[in-house]
């Protein structure tokens, strides 16, 4: 039995950066969501003021897609994620209603200080093959096409785009608080693409056919009373900024270390190797920590992005999860990346889970259930979109639709998805959300991965062998 009624109004609310200001706004306009705060553990909220209004808390990146596909009538998220969607699907079902007058920073196009680029016009004229790193691949592609760049490659990343130039990217399209903030990272701001404000968005069909007026009016009353303000930050094209150059020196061997949840255990592991590492611990995080080994360059990036970066030769070695390696290999089966050995921390299970109410106990029963026409198509939410795709194909589940998520896939079940493929440590979260594990796809832990060509290179193999021996010493 689904919690939501067909005629109720569904609102998608953001986690993360906009949670706090959005909670303030909702309190001011008295929408009746007292439980919406950064302390809340639940995903689903009911309005105490409007009985027909329900909300769900989602990752901000997921909101524009979820509103566009019609799972939500209204949503609040940043203009960057809205434009990232609209630039690819301009005729889609996502409609911007109004800016909510809060937000921070802008999406900028920036150049590496080493690339010798000082203006966007130069990009069209040159015949270079530009590497563009970004969390916004659609915005970046549109920019490159409109600039008539002769040749470019876009590397979508989960985060830490600022860490890639100059060695691993020539340009980046990224969020920054201001031009000065960007320049501090050793980058040259070329253009501000758009300010990142929070927006109220709607599904086109809902707007055309459903009475959302009471809810929209609540927002409007506040916005009319408080005229639109500009959140533009200071301009960022001063010559001073352009003169900034990061201290960077090419290294013989390049290693990527993980940020986020994996950082603390990875730093702990590193201590056991006996190698000195400055700027990388549970408490301290800089993008370029240093070691006593002068031939070793280290960068801290997202573990999700590492296999692709190692495949490209941007890094020779990386500490990532087996799950992300497998995700990469499902997408690029012939990729020159291999696992050297597991490191024994960050162990999780990658599972397929469904609602406890779904009458299936295993994948075979699910196949029959889908074939009987009770779910057409089976909607599967996953962070591991390529693993999920392969799993469903290999198990002959048809038809199915994948819903890419940015984590917390459990929030999607049962209203917006029928199944999830995600990682679990204990399974407690799944139980709390009335979900059951139907299949364990594989177990994953942190591992050392390497570029096969680097391993075979006479210039690199001895140093890579030395480093991997040191890391082996860290194994308990």
């Amino acid at each position, binding site marked *: 039995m689904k919690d939501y009624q067909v005629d109720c109004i569904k609102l998608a609310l953001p986690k993360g950066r906009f949670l706090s200001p959005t909670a303030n706004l909702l309190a001011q306009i008295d929408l009746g969501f007292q439980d919406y705060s950064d302390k809340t553990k639940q995903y689903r909220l009911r309005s105490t003021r409007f009985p027909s209004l329900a909300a769900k808390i989602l990752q901000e990146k997921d909101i524009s897609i979820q509103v566009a596909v019609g799972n939500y009538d209204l949503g609040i998220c940043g203009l960057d994620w809205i434009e990232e969607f609209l630039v690819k699907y301009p005729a889609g079902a996502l409609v911007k209603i109004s800016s909510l007058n809060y937000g921070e920073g802008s999406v900028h196009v920036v150049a590496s200080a080493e690339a010798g680029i000082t203006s966007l016009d130069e990009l069209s004229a040159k015949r270079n093959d530009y590497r563009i790193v970004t969390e916004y691949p659609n915005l970046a592609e*549109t920019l490159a096409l409109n600039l008539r760049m002769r040749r470019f490659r876009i590397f979508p990343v989960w985060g830490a785009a600022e860490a890639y130039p100059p060695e691993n990217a020539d340009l980046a399209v990224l969020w920054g608080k201001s031009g000065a903030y960007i320049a501090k990272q050793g980058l040259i701001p070329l253009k501000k693409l758009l300010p990142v404000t929070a927006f109220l968005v709607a599904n086109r069909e809902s707007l055309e056919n459903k009475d959302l007026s009471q809810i929209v009016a609540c927002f409007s009353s506040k916005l009319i009373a408080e005229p639109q303000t500009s959140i533009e930050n200071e301009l960022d094209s001063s010559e001073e900024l352009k003169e900034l150059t990061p201290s960077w020196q090419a290294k013989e061997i390049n290693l990527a270390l993980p940020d986020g949840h994996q950082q603390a255990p990875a730093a702990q592991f590193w201590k056991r190797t006996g190698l000195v590492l400055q700027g990388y611990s549970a408490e301290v995080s800089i993008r370029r920590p240093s070691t006593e080994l002068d031939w070793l360059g280290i960068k801290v990036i997202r573990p999700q992005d590492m296999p692709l970066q190692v495949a490209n030769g941007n890094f020779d070695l990386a500490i990532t999860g087996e799950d992300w390696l497998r995700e990469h290999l499902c997408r690029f089966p012939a*990729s020159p990346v291999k696992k050297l050995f597991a490191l024994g921390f960050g162990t999780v299970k990658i599972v397929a889970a469904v609602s406890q109410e779904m009458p299936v106990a295993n994948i075979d029963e699910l196949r029959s259930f889908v074939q009987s026409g009770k779910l057409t198509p089976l909607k599967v939410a996953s962070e591991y979109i390529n693993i999920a795709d392969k799993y469903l194909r290999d198990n002959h589940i048809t038809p199915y639709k994948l819903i890419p998520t940015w984590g917390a896939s459990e929030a999607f079940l049962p209203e917006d998805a029928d199944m999830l493929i995600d990682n679990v440590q204990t399974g407690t979260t799944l139980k709390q959300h009335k979900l059951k594990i139907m299949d364990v796809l594989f177990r994953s832990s942190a591992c050392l991965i390497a570029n096969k060509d680097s391993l075979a290179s006479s210039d690199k193999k001895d140093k890579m062998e030395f480093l991997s021996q040191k890391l082996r010493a860290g194994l308990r």
Partner: protein
Amino acid sequence: MENQKCKGMQDLLPEDMLRFRRIEDVFRTCCRNWGYHEVRTPTLEYLHLFTATGTLTPSMLSKVYSFLDWDGWSGERVVLRPDGTIPVARLYIDNLSGQELARLFYVTNIFAFEGTGKENRERWQCGAEFFGGTKFAPDVEIILLAKEVIHRLGLSNVGLQLSHAGLVKALLKEYKLSPGDEAKMTNRILEGNWQALTKMRSTNPEIDRLMAALLGLKGKSSSFLHNVRASFPKASQDFKSSLEDFLNIATLLDKLGCSYEIDIAAIHGFEYYTGICFQFLAAEKKIGGGGRYDKLVPLMNGEDTSACGFALYVDPIMQLLPLEKEKKSESGILVQGKELTPETAKTCFAVAESLRDAGYSAELGFTGREESDYRWVVLVSGKEPSPFTLTDCIQRRPRYIGASMAELLKVVSEG
């Protein structure tokens, strides 16, 4: 039952394929007769072939199907071929650039996203490209070749419109826009938005007058271009040289008795054209177009090679062609067993094989087919001494009953 076809894609049914093959056959025959050689390019090409200025406009590029291949970890994107000419130019550069002249033709599908899903996202075209050669004679050759294909297909009331990309670019230069604004204006013009240009005032009233004349008047012969030349003696050198090229082509077409309309606005879609541009219209639909693109080959790192070409759009032409049913009734033979036993089926297969070996189209009948669709029907009873009955479907009477395959073939051959 729910339609399972991908949005924007089309199935070609037997009747569609009859039309399709007719277009293709006529096109291939004409091209071969003119000395063109058939080529075929792959469905996938690298995206970067299409991104430089002078290839596809940003608006067209926003509709390409691009993705990373299974080995695309380097970030190099590939596309489903969005255009016919650029891949053939790439083929020429990679393989044939040593030749002084290359006349090439192709029948291919191209892919472009279309938002509503009601129009085709996969479209077919028959194209011919002429690499090398001097100006205006190859331009006229490709126009006449395209016209011959259209004529042989039996399409009537097809209009030919001429424009000139060099002339349009020279005019645009007169507005003295910044490079960025000029690029934007070019894109608008290529999308058919001429109003954007007419709304803009030039600093030179002579240019406004020239633009108004070119957009307002439709010439029907080279005399019109002579008149333009005489009316605007102060036009730029670029304009004059493009006009001269246009005049040469128009004059030759006049001499060859090829009628046309000069419409400066008949240029849209492709950024790579540098000289003459033309399009064919039938029943208000664009059924083909082409032009000269001298800068494309060098832009793609090839040698400085002049080139021109055209494409006929198969999908709108198919809608205009009358359906010609397969004329099985002229020669087709249906072979069927009186009853379906292993013995009669074996004889049916053997009879049909003998007929096909003798050059006839012989179809096996397992269900009650309409005999009127065929010239002959052979009914196999399998019983000696007369295992066959041959029926003449035109005269509607049995013509032969006997045991010999040779005799059966004799009757069929004599009609």
